[in-house]
């Protein structure tokens, strides 16, 4: 009992206990302050920005109270700061990539090319943005895979935000046989578009003649729709065009090659061998 009493009344022990108390109080104060500020800013900022502010504030306040606690137990802060300076230089050299990712993350935060919930395409990877973190971005692909993309590569490369604008254009490539009347094909396509309620009346669908292909006349038929309906339009319009072409007897040709023997009108000579086999 006396040992315990002596332990708690020893001057150094009191200093250490004060230091621990300062840190604990600091943790509580940090939580209260960050909680209040997050509540105030919740409506003005998105989740990513709030997360950054919350973490920055929390650890900043903790660091202040930690320094105060160290000062309380008599540690020379000059030595600590000096050591921290040397350490940060060493860490800086070692973590150039991480620092680059961190800075890139801040640039992304300011530029806001996309937000959580948007669908983006980076290189050949497309998916929904789950979170935009300090060092990396997290995506969920359409086949439910989890992809981590470093922020540095997002700043350096092309990022396509598929859901930035409310409407999107679907470019359908259609090929018809050379014998078809393009005016009739055009009318059929526009009627299919008109009958599909997902296809926007404005901007008007576009009929673009692409060129005289090897086996067919190539056409691009572009239609606009709400971004949420893009996939459904893609499927329904393709089925609609196929059905309409069948009804109008418009041929969608297979790739084919025509052989000539030297004159367009002479038949190609064919002889049958080994009839018995």
């Amino acid at each position: 009992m006396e040992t315990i009493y002596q332990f708690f009344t020893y001057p150094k022990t009191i200093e250490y206990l004060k230091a621990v108390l300062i840190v604990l109080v600091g943790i509580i104060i940090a939580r209260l302050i960050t909680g209040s500020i997050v509540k105030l800013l919740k409506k003005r900022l998105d989740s990513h920005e709030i997360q950054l502010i919350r973490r920055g504030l929390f650890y900043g306040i903790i660091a202040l109270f930690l320094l105060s606690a160290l000062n309380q137990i008599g540690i020379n802060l000059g030595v600590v700061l000096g050591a921290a300076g040397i350490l940060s230089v060493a860490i800086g050299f070692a973590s150039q990539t991480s620092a680059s990712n961190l800075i890139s993350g801040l640039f992304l935060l300011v530029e806001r090319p996309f937000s959580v919930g948007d669908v983006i395409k980076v290189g050949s990877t497309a998916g929904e943005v789950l979170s935009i973190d300090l060092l990396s971005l997290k995506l969920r692909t359409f086949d439910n895979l989890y992809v981590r993309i470093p922020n540095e590569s997002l700043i350096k490369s092309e990022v396509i935000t598929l859901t930035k604008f409310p409407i999107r254009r679907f470019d359908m490539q259609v090929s018809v046989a050379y014998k078809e009347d393009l005016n009739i094909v055009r009318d059929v396509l526009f009627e299919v578009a008109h009958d599909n309620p997902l296809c926007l009346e404005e901007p008007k669908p576009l009929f673009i003649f692409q060129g005289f292909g090897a086996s067919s006349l190539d056409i691009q038929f572009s239609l606009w729709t709400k971004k949420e309906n893009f996939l459904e339009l893609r499927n329904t319009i393709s089925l609609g065009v196929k059905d309409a072409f069948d009804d109008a007897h418009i041929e969608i040709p297979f790739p084919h090659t025509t052989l000539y023997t030297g004159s367009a009108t002479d038949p190609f000579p064919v002889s049958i061998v080994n009839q018995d086999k």
Partner: protein
Amino acid sequence: MHEVWWGTFPLRRGQHLKKQIGPLSLAFKVELNECQIYYNYLADWKEDSEEASISLEHLICSDNLKERFIISNTDEKLSLLPILADRPVVTKPVTPIYIPSKQKITIFVSTPLWVRAEYGPDKILLKDIAVIRPSDTWFGPNTMEGEVCYASQTKARLEASNLSRRYHRATTPIHLFNDSASHLLLERINLPVTHLEVYLDENNRFWTQAVKMINDKDNETAEMLILPGSPSEASKATLVGVPREMVVEKSIIRKISGFFE
């Protein structure tokens, strides 16, 4: 003869109710603790065509069963109310109209109605069903800013007496005034039908509140006022449908260039 489809109808367990509204064939069937909604659209239906309908036996089948609502008390009445579209409607005159400088004109445009089904004294909202599912369209200065609306066409009648009576559409008188120094080309009108009330006149014709539009001198903005109450062309009109959204301010300034594009 067109059937009056709106109103309140007793609908108890074991009973059914069928209505034909334009191309929409609609039926309600009440069983023990549930109300079933069946509907389908007539294929190849055309405006101003003779009334066609699906028989009850063909309508009430599993293919047309769209919703089932579980209701504890199925000894009540069903209300069918007319309501306007759930998005603004962009209506295009069949032929573009020019309004010379300082000219005033009133045109009448109609937009398709929705049917709102409510059950019981508590007015349990069952469903809003479009009588005609209009095509989507975009209205805005470019493909980045604007809003998704419904598309409609109008003959832009200039006299109320020339309007056809259709039980599935509501007519909006639009008072236009060209305050600019040049001709105004009226190619499309964005009607904020979500803010409009529906009235029924003594001839069983549906109307909405009248709308007044004044484009300013630079043709960049157009002030639109929703005039309170039933329009003057609707004689002895009664309010039958409420707006989906209440208007906070009386006038809505559209800062979309080419509002009247």
